[in-house]
């Protein structure tokens, strides 16, 4: 009747999977160039009233922050991948920012739709800075995109109140919703930003939505994904990291690797499990997560630390009440692969008892 034992063979050390304490030393010519960063995303801090917030979402973020602070050596920086708030309010963003302030290290923020559609990112920007930007770190070029924009008509002319606009964009399978996009202005900026770079520079792009088309109904989707991919495809080592989907996904399209990061709030099911979904393009490489156990509120949520030693992304998922997973870039096959479960024969059995 055992539901799932995340550690087989109790009493044994989970060798090789211990604290992510030592980073792989290779790849960059100079060892000093090796680095790792942490990635926390999708906390969906939700205001109830007064000083009350949804406790479950608070606990998820608090725990991820506390664990990130345990990393040794310390990550070079931390990325927050968007959807810090649930409905974009000042209260939510302030409360989230306060919890994030416990992080030891520089935090780079990515805009999520739940942060944006109330005031179009104005208050968020006062807390965290520009909506899109780039920076360089130890030889890697990082780009942060605001990928959750949509067309001006929907944003400016369709809704009587900002609150309704926010609520419409927050829903799944909402016929009143609108597909995400990076937009022409930002694509032009990206083109200019990348023009300065040598094509051998390792490139990492952070976006909230996947810069690929998976399932439109839940906006696991970016409308102008192909145009953005076109701007990235000539780089030798290029990775897109995205939140929003609250589940493990990874993919390779042409020369571009894609990796999702987990939510600290709740897991989403895979859209392939949704009978009414219609057309779903779940990335073929992805070995899905096993289903979360509803007894445990933190199950199938988590955070990740990312090892950049190879110039590609090795992504270590820290999953609560569940087996942690590592998705590494495999230089032989040229694609991201799960370090344990990639082959059909190595898959873990799905959870079938509650």
């Amino acid at each position, binding site marked *: 009747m055992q539901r799932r034992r995340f*550690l087989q063979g109790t009493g044994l050390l*989970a060798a090789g999977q211990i604290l992510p304490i030592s980073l792989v030393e290779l790849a960059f010519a100079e060892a000093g160039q090796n680095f790792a960063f942490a990635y926390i995303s999708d906390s969906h801090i939700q205001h109830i009233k007064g000083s009350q917030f949804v406790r479950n979402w608070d606990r998820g973020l608090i*725990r991820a922050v506390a664990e990130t602070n345990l990393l040794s050596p310390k990550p070079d920086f931390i990325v927050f991948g968007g959807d810090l708030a649930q409905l974009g309010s000042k209260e939510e963003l302030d409360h989230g920012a306060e919890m994030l302030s416990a992080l030891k290290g520089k935090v780079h923020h990515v805009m999520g739709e739940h942060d944006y559609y109330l005031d179009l990112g104005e208050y968020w920007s006062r807390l965290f800075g520009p909506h899109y930007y780039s920076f360089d770190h130890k030889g890697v070029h990082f780009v942060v995109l605001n990928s959750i924009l949509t067309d001006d008509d929907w944003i400016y002319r369709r809704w009587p109140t900002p609150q309704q606009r926010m609520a419409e964009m927050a829903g799944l399978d909402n016929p009143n919703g609108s597909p995400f996009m990076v937009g022409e202005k930002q694509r032009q900026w990206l083109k200019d930003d990348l023009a300065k770079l040598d094509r051998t520079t390792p490139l990492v792009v952070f976006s909230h939505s996947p810069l690929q088309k998976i399932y439109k109904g839940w906006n696991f989707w970016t409308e102008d994904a192909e145009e953005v991919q076109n701007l990235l495809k000539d780089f030798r080592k290029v990775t897109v990291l995205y939140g929003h989907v609250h589940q493990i996904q990874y993919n390779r399209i042409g020369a571009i690797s894609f990796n999702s990061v987990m939510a600290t709030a709740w897991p989403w099911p895979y859209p392939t499990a949704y009978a009414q979904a219609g057309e779903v393009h779940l990335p073929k490489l992805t070995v899905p997560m096993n289903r979360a156990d509803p007894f445990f509120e933190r199950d199938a949520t988590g955070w990740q630390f990312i090892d950049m030693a190879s110039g590609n992304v090795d992504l270590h998922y820290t999953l609560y009440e569940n087996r942690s997973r590592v998705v590494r870039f495999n230089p032989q096959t040229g694609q991201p692969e799960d370090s344990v479960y990639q082959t059909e024969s190595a898959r873990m059995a799905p959870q079938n008892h509650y």
Partner: protein
Amino acid sequence: MYTLFPPDLRARIAARFHRRHLISALIILLLLFLWPALGLVDPLGLPPVPIPPDNPQTEAKIALGKKLFEDVRFSSTGKVSCATCHDPAKSFTDSPLKVSEGIDKLTGTRNAPTVVNAAYLTSQFWDGRSPSLEDQALHPFLNPVEMGLPNHDPIVKIARTDPEYAKAFKEVFGKSGDQVTMKEVTQAIAGFERTVLAGDSPFDRWYFGGEKSALEPAQVRGFQVFVGQGRCVSCHVVEQTQALFTDNRFHNIGVGINAIQSQVPALAGAFLEAKAKGANVDIAVLTDKKTSELGRFAVTSQFDDLGGFKTPTLRNIALTAPYMHDGSLASLRDVVNHYDNGGAAKAGNKVNDFLSGGIRPLGLSDAQKDDLVAFLLSLTSPQYAAPTQPAAAPKKK
């Protein structure tokens, strides 16, 4: 400690047999008596006891294990046996001690977990650092604050040379002299421990036996809190046919670690470093209070296990105060309040950052708390509640 067949039933069974079947009947009767002794009859509310294939139960092995369990010679002072901290008269704990006392009144860091129903656990010790009863039995002998032996040699020597033991090991394992090792010693102890069971409580008679009057109305209401608003059953599992009251998992419920929150990064780092250099986990967690509070993390080095401890059974809980891995909560009411506060002994205290999901304020009323405690009192098995001779008689004859 076992339910015997009532005499009238035995008589009726025997009467069904014709005189010429007397011998068969006698054999059957003999088996009927042997089954419970071999642990083959499951008390109400318990599944069959898992028996490892390489350590089958025999009556002689169980008796030998009991004798070893109670032998004070297996300690450096000659005064401490397994039964010192796992006293049959106290449901195999050392209630009312907060943390156990070993040799020379030295104290450890943890409240003695009961042996009762340990046979069903998938790992042993509060942090699960041992995978089996056989392995578990090796460690307290050598821990400096428990039985304090420098190594297992003194035990093996007594087992080989004491005439009663020599005879028993020969009978049970067919081994003598140098062939008797800690393997046989711990197999016998584990064999005995697999007979230390508790079912047949008023709750079992009510829930599994359909005996409506077995519980008081307050206890019935308390069970509804247990499976409902109290959310106890999420970890203290009750199933359709059995109730072990544990999920065999480890949870950070805000006991112990709440007090050392700001020190966790330093403590966790220092512990991992010491462990990498070969420090003994068993000794570290029982001799250093702060290291102890790292919980399951000390075993697995996983973030997810910080401050996590194994879900204990709730059987005989009325007999085993104080509670939690550190004995920090004096009464069942205190325990209920701790959970009601969402993982803090006092309302309003800060909970720790690593708190397990599912631990959250419950909003129980005083009446619900009273009922829940009343329900917990229904989990006492009769042979422990009013200890009968075999269950109570500890120590020497």
